[in-house]
């Protein structure tokens, strides 16, 4: 039984009617409206029906671009001139403890430049994205708890490093529902398979399974490989339409004897939704329907395709979208950082810039929160050779949970802002520290929730995404 502690009413009478019209379900919905109370139907038929949060939200959708493995902040969005001075020399501070031993300072091989009216400094790796500096709110004082992938991924995604807890996207869809019932509400795109910690990153935890993220392997382009059971090769659409027509009639006759059971009506409607979903999902994931200039804007390759898909999904009302860079931990540059980071950024910089530009142009950026980051950052010091752990090239960086960067854009955040700061070398967040729990509290706030009141009763406790932590960082909000 869902213990919804927020308003489960529909967004308003007009939108309910609108939904019933849009769902166009013929007899089913009509009969339903007359026979049952509206809320009963909403609860029973639509676990994902749009819901009102605690207060008017600034953002309606989230696109989380997840650079899994841990992008280096000192090579991307957190310039450190002092580190350049100490390149090849021991830092004048003790190296903080990370996963593996690190040595002398490793100056960033990338050039930084100021962008936009705000003059935010960004490295050449993201020079295209940086053109939107005035839209970006760069949090340079992020910190997490431990320098290991597994717990840090879970912390970033679920607010808890070890135990089974719902992911941010699951919380969001539980609290807000979704605007398009013909598509999954929460989609996690990851080309080539799973990241580390796998589907736990988008788990529903103790929430109903319907709130779990739907994993889509964007290495594929055929719709039947993207979404399970979305296509039927053995009946045509017309043949299936005939089947559903008969089904509707049989169910109507069955329902005549049981006229007030919302569960029966819910199931009748689910077939109508499924029928439309087959078409709509195929369209949503098919980027070849985009005009050539849009395809050119995003560029070539898998990253471009999945980031473009993210925009198509937002446009269609999908609530929460994660775009993972790839299976495993691609950004984990323990060796050859320069080469690897250049390659990886080259795969996504243009597409991220295109996404921001495209959303802005379509008027969607205001209501879409774009978030960029990994599970942690990387050390300013060079990782020392360690057998079995790295290739011993002495040109990479270790994991760094003490300080790193996440940036936000759109969705009601303050653009052109660099918030907080790490120390002179980028090792530890020093000024205006933002813990992952604080980031979550702020995300929930932007989506219309008081993170302390947004709870779910399970196993005797009222659980929160932020557990007993988190504070809203007001300075990030426009």
């Amino acid at each position: 039984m869902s213990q919804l502690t927020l308003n489960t009413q529909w967004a308003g009478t007009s939108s309910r009617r609108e939904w019933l019209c849009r769902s166009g379900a013929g007899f089913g919905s009509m009969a339903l409206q007359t026979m049952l109370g509206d809320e009963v139907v909403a609860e029973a038929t639509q676990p994902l029906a749009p819901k009102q949060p605690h207060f008017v939200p600034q953002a309606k959708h989230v696109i989380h671009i997840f650079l899994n493995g841990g992008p280096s902040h000192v090579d991307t969005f957190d310039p450190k001139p002092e580190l350049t001075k100490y390149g090849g020399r021991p830092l004048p501070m003790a190296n903080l403890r990370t996963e593996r031993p690190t040595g002398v300072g490793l100056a960033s091989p990338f050039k930084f430049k100021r962008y936009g009216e705000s003059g935010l400094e960004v490295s050449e790796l993201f020079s295209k994205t940086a053109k939107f500096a005035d839209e970006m709110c760069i949090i340079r004082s992020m910190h997490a708890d431990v320098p290991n992938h597994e717990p840090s991924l879970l912390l970033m995604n679920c607010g808890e490093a070890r135990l089974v807890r719902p992911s941010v996207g699951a919380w969001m869809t539980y609290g807000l529902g979704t605007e398009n019932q013909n598509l999954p509400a929460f989609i996690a795109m990851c080309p080539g398979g799973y990241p580390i910690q796998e589907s736990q990153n988008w788990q529903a935890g103790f929430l109903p399974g319907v709130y779990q993220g739907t994993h889509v392997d964007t290495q594929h382009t055929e719709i039947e490989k993207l979404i399970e059971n979305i296509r039927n090769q053995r009946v045509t659409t017309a043949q299936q339409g005939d089947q559903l027509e008969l089904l509707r009639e049989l169910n109507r006759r069955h329902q005549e004897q049981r006229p007030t059971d919302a569960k029966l009506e819910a199931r009748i409607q689910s077939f109508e939704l499924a029928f439309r979903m087959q078409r709509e999902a195929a369209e949503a994931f098919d980027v070849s329907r985009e005009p050539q200039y849009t395809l050119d804007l995003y560029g070539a390759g898998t990253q471009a395709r999945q980031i473009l898909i993210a925009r198509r999904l937002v446009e269609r009302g999908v609530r929460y979208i994660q775009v993972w860079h790839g299976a495993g931990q691609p950004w984990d540059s323990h060796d050859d950082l320069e080469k690897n980071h250049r390659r990886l950024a080259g795969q996504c910089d243009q597409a991220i810039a295109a996404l921001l530009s495209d959303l802005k142009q379509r008027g969607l950026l205001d209501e879409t929160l774009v978030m960029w980051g990994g599970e942690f950052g990387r050390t300013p010091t060079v990782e020392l050779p360690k057998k079995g752990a790295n290739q011993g090239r002495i040109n990479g960086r270790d994991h760094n949970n003490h300080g790193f960067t996440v940036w936000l854009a759109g969705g009601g955040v303050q653009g052109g802002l660099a918030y907080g700061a790490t120390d002179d070398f980028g090792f530890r967040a020093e000024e205006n520290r933002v813990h992952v729990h604080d980031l979550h509290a702020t995300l929930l706030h932007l989506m219309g929730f008081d993170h302390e009141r947004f709870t779910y009763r399970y196993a005797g406790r009222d659980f929160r995404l932020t557990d007993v932590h988190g504070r809203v960082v007001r300075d990030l909000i426009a």
Partner: protein
Amino acid sequence: MISMRHLRWGFCQIAVGALLTCLLLAPLTKAAPTDFSQEEIDFFESKIRPALIKHCYVCHSSRADEIQGELRLDSQAGWQAGGVSGTVIVPGRPEKSLFIAAIRHTAGVANMPPKQKLPAAVVEDFEAWVRLGAPDPRTASTAHPNNDLGEDVASTHWAFQPPQVTPVPSMPGQTWSTTDLDRYVLSRLEGKGVQPAEIADRATLMRRLYFDLVGLPPTFEAIQDFVGNDAPDAYLQLVNTLLESPQFGERWARHWMDVARFADTRGYVFTAERKYTDAFKYRDWLIQAFNADLPYDRFLKLQMAADRLVEATDAEQLAAMGFLTLGRRFLNNMHDIIDDRIDVVTRGTMALTVSCSRCHDHKYDPIPTADYYALYGVFASSHEPNNAPAPLRLVDAQVVNVGVFVRGNPGNRGAAVPRRFLSLLAGPKATPFRDGSGRLEMAEAIVNPQNPLTARVLVNRVWGHLFGAGLVTTPSDFGVRSDAPAQPEALDYLALQFVQEGWSVKQLIRRIVLSSVYRQRSDEGSPAQQIDPENRFFWRMNRRRKDFEAMRDGILAVAGNLDKTIGGPSVNIVGKDYAPRRTLYGFIDRQNLPGIFRTFDFAGPDTHAPKRHETTVPQQALFLLNSPFAMQQAEVLGNRVKTPDDMTTIDNLYRAVLGRSPDAAERQLAGAFLDKARARDARPSIPQSPWKFGYGGLNEEENGIREFAELPYWNGEAWQGGEKIPDPKLGWLNLRAAGGHPGAGPTRAAIRRWTAYCEGEIVIQGALVHSEKRGDGVRGRIVSSRHGVLGDWSVHDRRQVTAVTRLRVEVGDTIDFVVDSRASTDYDSHLWKVDISGHFHGVRRTWNSQKGFHGPLPPQLQPVVRLAQVLLLSNEFQFVD
């Protein structure tokens, strides 16, 4: 047996029957005497309590907004547990007490109160009090631990009191009730002014009983037999038959697997072995236990301490301990593994949320943190032996008592807590466990008939499975925040009977399903709907949607396809290569649980699942419409019942799927569907794929293809002339995703054919590649059925772009990509990838020859099969009245 030193139930261990009488008669003796002298108490009350209230409670009591430093000074237990800084008061030793240092404003410690130092006299009083041994009656006068809010819920909350026997209400002049259970329920209903529903008809009862007891639908013939059985005990016979059928154990084992958060994998591991290869042995033990009606107390004891109850070589019984050992492994973090075990034991068997007390005293229930670590010690004193013939077992290890982890932090430990049972149930001075780890003693305390929770919790779970809702709505939380049972007399009656009848689960189920309450109709329409719309009082049966297992098993069963093998290693039940076994045998990967399980609200296998969620989403419909499973079962079913006569076929289908014959209107509807389906199939329609793979020749005069035949053999990667290549007739001729090889002679060209299924304008892009110096290359042509040859290229050891611009196509037009040999037929392997793209009614589409390449397509579903699928999709099949 341990003795439960619960003062209110202060009597010794006696036979069960007598004990129950005793439970009724034993007065609730109140409170132990205090351990302090009256003078000491007076000192506390006059000096210490007022000072604490005045100066400390604002930050260190339940009235604080946030308890500072996790330290509570509003109960003895509070300061005894200490705060983030550890122990603050050492009775008798003011100089060792951080509390005293703080109020003295000693340098180096946090000064308390922070702003203003206490008057010197008050500080002296506190010092004197600590020197006296810190006498504090605030908990010493209470027999039970209070909850975190200071309330004595242990003696007031219903679930913590022994089950009560209520005299059976006499119900003169009514005929509805047939059992004592009914009379308890009916009495409550009458009190609410609610009439119970009528008894359901026999066919409905039969479907209901099959669903509840064995999880499978009855056959048409079995329903007919039952409906026509005039014997007065026909219903009882049916109940007994189902209880004795081996499928009973399968159905009820699966229910317990939800409790036990069963899975076949450990959860996330980086590179280590992920599977629990022996998990199925626990599942099979459960099936066997339910079928044998193993008494529930023994059932629980074996699951927690089989190592102490059976021979070390009895691998079959030792598998019972999978209950403890098959949880998630949390990357081998021992604290989390033990937490999971404490949780599955306490919520699973007693509906107590003990895990809440891992970091602080339970906020609502009387479960102090010390209790958690008392149980923690039990599990920390047990280990899993390696390489044992009984892989799922735990055995006792080096005994350890564990200190409270302050705020759950293993690096900050308080004083060691002896291993013992929960103080709520065993009393504040529970005897420490002495027998090894104490696991057996813990299990015995759980199944002790004096335990007010265990029997009620099981009864409530069984009721929940039989009615679709429990008497208590939170089956795994009977704490103070749970709603009291709507029918408390019924719950207590069943719980007491259950224990009295030797903890027989089968007898409990029999007792419930024989009642009128269970046999009611499920209609909502009566006036009672207005009074109790949620049916909390059970004035009708709840209509239930089949759970995932009953849904899938039911489809397999009515299709005639179910493999009824019982037990054995888990099998794959998802995707194309699924086993037609019952769903409980499906392999459960808790880390990446396949979508189908989640879609159908399967219990999350990560932690103990109190009950299943029930959602209705289109992905469920998509599975039933489009999955290989759904279509294959419909196909088996349709083909099995098909006859030359439509009406006979329709009758057969209804009987097979719904267990009844169709009425005239239903026959007519189904007949019309078949007629329409056949008519539709006779018309041309959008093909499954626009591509065909064949061979033929070009008619130069007519500027078109002379003949086209599809290649007859598919080897898994390529279409070719036969199993062996070269084929006697077609030679090396083959087509594969990216290219192919032509055959010899003018009628053996390799032809990849695309057919337009709607009109529009297309362009063709691509390249023909031949990469071999030897031979003389190949010739490629693009030929339209409407416009003739559109392009003609020869390539030899080079790449040639093959483009066609702006071409109009009509429905049914073909575009052929024809490759033949030139003078030489050797070394003619080539690549030819093309994109056909264009606008069709304003929608841009592209067909890529490589992506569109495919082997034989699955055959279309025949009309009868499509009709069979509709019946499988119907609400009538998927719901149980």
